[in-house]
């Protein structure tokens, strides 16, 4: 493959030695390469360990009802994490996901209850709200080239204010809504387990988004844009259009999240979900998606959301105070980001 070139200076032999040294694989670097290749692997391992440990600590943890409860508790954050993953993959971050979802849920509920609009039409209006919010974020990011952190910090406040202005601060009860709006809160039995339709809807979204990210050119372009924007542009990818479509897709996912949220809480409240923004980022980060963009897997985010849910549930079953749950989640985040940094230092 390489002929020894006559022009090569005498140090060529040393260069060969140096490269062989770099190529040598230690067991640790081999583990790192595997984790690097499959970003969802490390959260999967953490999830497995957590389930085993909490199962040993308290025999109630592994009961079917408890596991079903955890998935229901995770449904809303898990859905927001889908939108968050899409945006973080493009090296952005969205602080407004929770606010968009709540705004959308208030619009859906108010239109159906106060304005008497049929349920399905109210849901479509909610989808329009999600898309409009995504379009605003996307427009500010692509057209004015503002950092996504700043854009969504601004729109977070705007959407929270709009929600309170629109709803007058009052909660809409689920009992007053048409049944289709609370449908995702219902459960159906499979054998001894009761499955929530909201959870099924969330998993369906994961399947669809995983397919699009993994199997289509658009998905590959999302990764390429997050990985190296300039390289993507030089390769002929319309970077701004890809970014815009990512924010729109995130908005659509958030509207579905609003529907799941109404079902889960059996209400639409303007004050719900203040901490959902950060919880969704937590899920994505613990799920192994890099905040620097271009690296990660959508399934990792589902695992990340489940890990947070399991830690909170398991620690409270073990009789620990809520404060320790928060402490544990904090440590998890830092450990997850440290592992990401370590993985990124893969042989280069």
């Amino acid at each position, binding site marked *: 493959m*390489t002929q020894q070139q006559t*022009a090569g200076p005498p140090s*060529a032999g040393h260069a060969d030695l140096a490269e062989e040294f770099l190529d040598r694989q230690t067991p640790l670097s081999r583990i790192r390469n595997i984790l690097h290749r499959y970003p969802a692997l490390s959260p999967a391992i953490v999830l497995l360990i957590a389930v085993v440990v909490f199962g040993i600590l308290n025999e109630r943890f592994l009961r079917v009802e408890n596991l079903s409860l955890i998935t229901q508790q995770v449904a809303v954050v898990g859905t927001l994490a889908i939108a968050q993953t899409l945006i973080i993959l493009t090296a952005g971050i969205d602080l407004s996901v929770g606010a968009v979802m709540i705004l959308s849920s208030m619009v859906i509920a108010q239109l159906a209850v106060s304005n008497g609009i049929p349920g399905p039409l109210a849901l479509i209006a909610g989808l329009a709200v999600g898309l409009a919010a995504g379009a605003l974020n996307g427009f500010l990011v692509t057209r004015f080239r503002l950092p996504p952190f700043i854009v969504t910090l601004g729109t977070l406040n705007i959407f929270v204010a709009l929600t309170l202005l629109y709803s007058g601060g009052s909660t809409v009860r689920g009992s007053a809504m048409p049944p289709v709006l609370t449908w995702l809160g219902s459960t159906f039995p499979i054998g001894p387990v009761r499955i929530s339709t909201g959870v099924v809807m969330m998993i369906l979204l994961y399947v669809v988004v995983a397919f699009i990210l993994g199997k289509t050119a*658009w998905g590959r372009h999302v990764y390429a844009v997050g990985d190296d924007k300039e390289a993507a542009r030089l390769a*002929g990818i319309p970077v701004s259009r890809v970014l815009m479509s990512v924010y729109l897709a995130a908005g659509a996912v958030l509207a579905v999240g609003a529907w799941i949220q109404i079902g889960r809480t059996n209400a639409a409240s303007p004050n719900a979900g203040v901490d959902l923004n950060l919880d969704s980022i937590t899920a994505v980060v613990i799920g192994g998606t890099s905040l620097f963009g271009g690296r990660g897997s959508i399934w990792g985010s589902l695992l990340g959301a489940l890990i947070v849910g399991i830690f909170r549930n398991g620690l409270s079953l073990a009789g620990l105070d809520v404060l320790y749950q928060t402490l544990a989640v904090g440590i998890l985040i830092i450990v997850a980001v440290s592992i990401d940094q370590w993985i990124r230092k893969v042989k280069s």
Partner: protein
Amino acid sequence: MTTTEFAASHTNTREPILKARNLVKTFGRVVGLDGVSLDLYPGEVLAVIGDNGAGKSTLIKCLTGAEVPDAGELYVSGQQVHFKRPQDARVHGIETVYQNLAVSPALDVASNLFLGREERLPGLLGSVFRMLDTKGMRRKAKEELTRLGISTLQDVTVPVENLSGGQRQAVAVARAAAFGSKVVVLDEPTAALGVRESNQVLQLVRDLRDRGLPVILISHNMPHVFDVADRIHIQRLGKCAATITPQSHSMTDAVAIMTGAAKA
């Protein structure tokens, strides 16, 4: 185009594939190019050298559509062309490998080769579900690498960031040379590489030339230039000071022409 067609055009004709005549480009009062002409023939490596500010970057940008010249003509295979954007040059088969290596580190080799021109599965899976033909693209990537004689990239499913600098450069060059391109422009391809990796890239340049694909090579590295170039275009003060060959002149002569210490 197949290798045999390349070889035929190489031996039979001396019609330049890329021809530039009297290119002028000014930036305000600064003259970047002052009437530069250049010919690139099939199956040759043409090096462009020059001191900083001599206009070699501007020349390359005009040839690849990154800048629009104020005056002068460009011909591809004898037909006059006007490049407004890099995409225009790409349409005419002129592919550029940029100094900052336009590859996506987290994507694998095959994905990088097909980045921006992905192929979908045939039938409903492709048209309705927009599914990528991942296997097909990997197979074609392998074929293309074999055709280009790039032996350093065996596994096309490896993420590019796991590769060495030379292998990454090979991916970038392969993307430029693949899929029926006519001219490959390499901007400082060995600048960031070690000795062994530089040699790999220079070998790759020779291989491309031997397969009939002409290469324009911009480099600061005189030994590299004299190693692979068939002809050397020396830019000085916005003009072409001389076009020499490694046989007709020594490295010292070239540096003297470049700096103005000697006339060609």
